[in-house]
């Protein structure tokens, strides 16, 4: 009877696919061998590149770790795809093993045609174990199992310390300068060079690129950072943080509730972690009081800036690599530049001590699997950054307030100095300079006064706006809704009870209540509508649509005031790129302006005309009314902030129109009397199409 028992067998191709495709870069492959040294409790691991600038070179990785005997090599090192390490177990130096599955090791070993392992176990360092892998034998074989490997055991000839040396000979490709730089950076950052652990793990690369970078990383400019954020996350998921300044003085502290975003300040479902960030202010003024120079720090941050992520003492790539801004620091800074660090102006690390297997690295070593634990760790780091930004904003506000107090004092001092300087000028010229300076002071005072007035007006209006919005919300939500529904209920019940008598008795007052309620609703709706966030977003805006919508919103209000709005809009749908809010504020302010002035004249029917016309790529919008026109003010001055002839007028409505039109690249003109007899305003806006 034929023996049909068998087992799965693998083509040698699988070795290439597993190793090279899952670990495509040289630095990541070599790092896997270096991590083996970390797991072997080595204190130093040295990578030497020999003749690697061309094909056929050699890479050697040696360490002073615990080494392996034949058993360790055969049942550990040679087994691919299995993590032979239990994260609960610690190494001799109490390290949590990196837990590599051996695929990176495979990729590294296959960088050359021949790989050799020499190991001297700590239990008996006089014994040497040698393994030689010649990959050409695999290329010739049908299945992997055909190639027999042997671990040779001999007595050691030289040396007495335990350790391991892996040599990769006859490299299949040359190693480029860029790859050497990447490898140097990866090795330097691998074992948290920012920490101060003398017992730590030290990877070394024998290459010029490495020593330059090593010098740079040793420079440690942390003390020159303007702010140091230190946030920690305990085993229960509660966070706390502190910000200190460059002198080490505590500026702000936060408890979990101050940090955790979201309602109820949820705990972070993530392993224990520590987040440190050193933020620099890269300007000459700041560095004038520091021991290092601006250029030094800039170069240092250029190489190592960003936030790096360490798991159990070893760095996880690609977090913090050039171009990897995993906490979106640069994006946030672009959106709100004030007081936020970028990856070019800060350096940091998130370190987690993780033995529970919650954070899992992807097999291709391209970072962590984005599971809940990782996303929660990210939320913790992001929340800490947000809190820091909020604190710094508060600080900036205080600074500005103090500057507002100090600035006038400085101005007075400077003026005195100029006056004294003028006194020292020879008499014949002194008078002319004095006069010129007096004149300058008068003009400047006037300018300051105008600006103050404008700022005050904007503040007043903003307060009025916020208050109006609050009341609009309350009144539309409740009293107006109640009046409206109650009036309609009266209408329905009265019609039913009174029948034909309703029209003669109650119809008129009930309709008046309903009409007045509609007018009140408009007030609220206009306020809400102006506050809508979406309207301030730049997008393609159809101008006619906005005009019609504003007029429709005002309809009950206009009806109540017996005002007729005649719109005569050009054919087509002219549009531009801008915000709906800008067009809306133009139309709304013109309508408001007319409504206010109608109170000053008595005509049979109040009229507002809105006409549009397209010519030469522009849309001309003409607003006319039959009010009193522009009296007592030069039409050119109506745009000035605070200029008004109306008692209690803000003088800002038309200023806002003017600014909005300018923002849209257009022009606006005022005429004292137009076609309807009252004021006339003509707006020209460049359009994109119609």
């Amino acid at each position, binding site marked *: 009877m034929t023996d049909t028992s068998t087992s799965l067998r693998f083509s040698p191709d699988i070795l290439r696919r597993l190793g090279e495709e899952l670990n495509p870069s040289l630095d990541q492959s070599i790092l896997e061998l270096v991590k083996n040294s970390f797991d072997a409790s080595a204190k130093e691991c040295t990578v030497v590149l020999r003749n690697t600038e061309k094909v056929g070179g050699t890479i050697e990785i040696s360490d002073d770790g615990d080494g392996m005997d034949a058993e360790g090599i055969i049942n550990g090192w040679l087994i691919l795809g299995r993590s032979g390490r239990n994260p609960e177990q610690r190494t001799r130096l109490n390290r949590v093993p990196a837990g590599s599955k051996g695929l990176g090791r495979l990729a590294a070993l296959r960088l050359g045609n021949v790989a050799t392992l020499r190991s001297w176990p700590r239990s008996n360092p006089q014994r040497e174990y040698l393994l030689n892998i010649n990959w050409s034998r695999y290329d010739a074989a049908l299945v992997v199992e055909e190639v027999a490997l042997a671990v040779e055991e001999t007595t050691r000839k030289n040396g007495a310390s335990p350790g391991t040396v892996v040599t990769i000979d006859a490299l299949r490709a040359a190693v480029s300068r860029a790859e050497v730089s990447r490898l140097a950076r990866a090795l330097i950052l691998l074992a948290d060079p920012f920490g101060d652990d003398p017992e730590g793990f030290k990877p070394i690369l024998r290459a010029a690129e490495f020593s330059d970078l090593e010098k740079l990383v040793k420079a440690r400019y942390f003390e020159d950072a303007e702010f140091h954020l230190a946030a920690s996350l305990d085993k229960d998921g509660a966070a706390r943080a502190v910000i200190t300044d460059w002198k080490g003085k505590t500026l702000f502290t936060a408890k979990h509730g101050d940090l955790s975003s979201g309602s109820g300040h949820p705990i972070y479902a993530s392993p224990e972690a520590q987040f440190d960030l050193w933020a620099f202010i890269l300007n000459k003024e700041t560095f004038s009081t520091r021991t290092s120079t601006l250029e030094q720090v800039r170069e240092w941050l250029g190489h190592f800036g960003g936030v790096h992520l360490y798991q159990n003492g070893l760095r996880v790539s690609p977090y913090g690599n050039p171009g990897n801004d995993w906490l979106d620091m640069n994006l946030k800074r672009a959106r709100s530049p004030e007081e936020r660090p970028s990856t070019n102006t800060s350096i940091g690390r998130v370190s987690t001590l993780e033995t529970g297997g919650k954070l899992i690295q992807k097999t291709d070593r391209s970072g962590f699997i984005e599971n*809940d634990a990782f996303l929660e760790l990210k939320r913790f780091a992001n929340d800490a950054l947000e809190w820091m930004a909020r604190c710094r904003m508060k600080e900036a506000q205080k600074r500005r307030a103090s500057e507002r107090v100090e600035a006038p004092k400085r101005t007075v001092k400077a003026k005195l100095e100029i006056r004294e300087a003028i006194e020292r000028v020879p008499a014949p010229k002194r008078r002319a300079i004095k006069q010129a300076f007096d004149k300058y002071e008068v003009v400047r005072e006037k300018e300051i006064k105008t600006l103050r007035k404008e700022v005050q007006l904007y503040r007043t209006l903003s307060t009025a706006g916020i208050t109006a919005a609050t009341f609009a919300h309350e009144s539309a939500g409740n009293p107006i809704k109640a009046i409206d*529904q109650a009036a309609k209920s009266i209408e329905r019940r009265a019609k039913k009870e009174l029948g034909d008598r309703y029209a003669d008795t109650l119809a008129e007052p009930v309709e008046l209540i309903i009409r007045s309620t509609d007018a009140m609703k408009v007030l609220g709706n206009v306020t809400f509508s102006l506050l809508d*966030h*979406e309207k301030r977003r730049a997008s393609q805006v159809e101008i006619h649509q906005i005009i019609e919508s504003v007029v429709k919103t005002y309809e009950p209000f206009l009806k109540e005031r017996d005002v007729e709005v005649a719109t005569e809009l050009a054919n087509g749908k002219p549009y531009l790129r801008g915000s709906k809010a800008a067009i809306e504020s133009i139309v709304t302010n013109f309508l408001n302006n007319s409504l206010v002035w109608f109170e000053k004249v008595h005509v049979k029917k109040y009229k507002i005309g809105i006409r549009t016309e397209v010519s030469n790529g522009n849309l001309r919008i003409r607003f006319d009314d039959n009010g009193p026109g522009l009296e007592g003010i030069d039409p050119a001055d109506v745009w000035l902030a605070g200029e008004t002839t109306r008692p209690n007028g803000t003088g800002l409505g038309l200023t806002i129109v003017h600014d909005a039109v300018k923002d849209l690249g257009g022009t606006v003109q005022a005429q004292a009397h137009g076609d309807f007899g009252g004021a006339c305003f003509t707006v020209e806006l460049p359009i994109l199409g119609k």
Partner: protein
Amino acid sequence: MAILGVPVSPSNYPFLENEMALNILGQSISRVQVIDDDPTARQAMAFTIRDADLEALPAEGPLPKLSTFVTTTKKRVDAVVSDHRLKKGHYATFNGAEAVAELYNAQCPAVLCTRWSTADIDAIRQYIPFIPSLISIDEVNPDTIATGFARCISEFKSAPVPSRKAWRTLLRVESVETSSKPALFYVAISGWDSKEIVRLPLDLIQYRRRRLIKPGFRFFASVNKGAEQPEALFFTNFEFPVKSKSK
């Protein structure tokens, strides 16, 4: 007059009978609970409900927790009319959209009244699949309330009306606004109004998928493309493309 874009007319709901109580597809409605955090507004809504010849029961606050509220309400009344904002003066710990959606899941007809402001719609959006009757405050009257109940019962007993039927639809992200509160994104909906970009709260998307939401990103969702107004659209069953690895 319309509810979620569908005109209200007796011909739309021929089964709607009104004789002191509503009888809709064999289900009788006579007692209606009124939920609003403002006592005056509750009273006013009660007038409208009584004008529909129904018994109005304004609910005094504070309301119990949502699950208890739904259980007790279902036992006490036949239907509910609720305002969306309910948190003033500790009236309720939930909002109207949450309440109406839970009542819908418990097969209790419920109508949600809102100002239909964009902020309210952002907050309501995730519940719209469970809110067949969303009425603007300006449209509240005995007919729209009755038709609202009819729509709920019709959905409980048979298929949704065409404007509420969901279709697998391709969406394209047009822009993202993370600085707003809530964070928003805007989508173009294939097979719907090609000119209209619809604004959605980012928290509609599962937290871990939010990083994918960037301008130009396309994904599928179930959308009721028969809806006439953007406010009535709902989005469920999001499907994101699986990142393929090159060999």
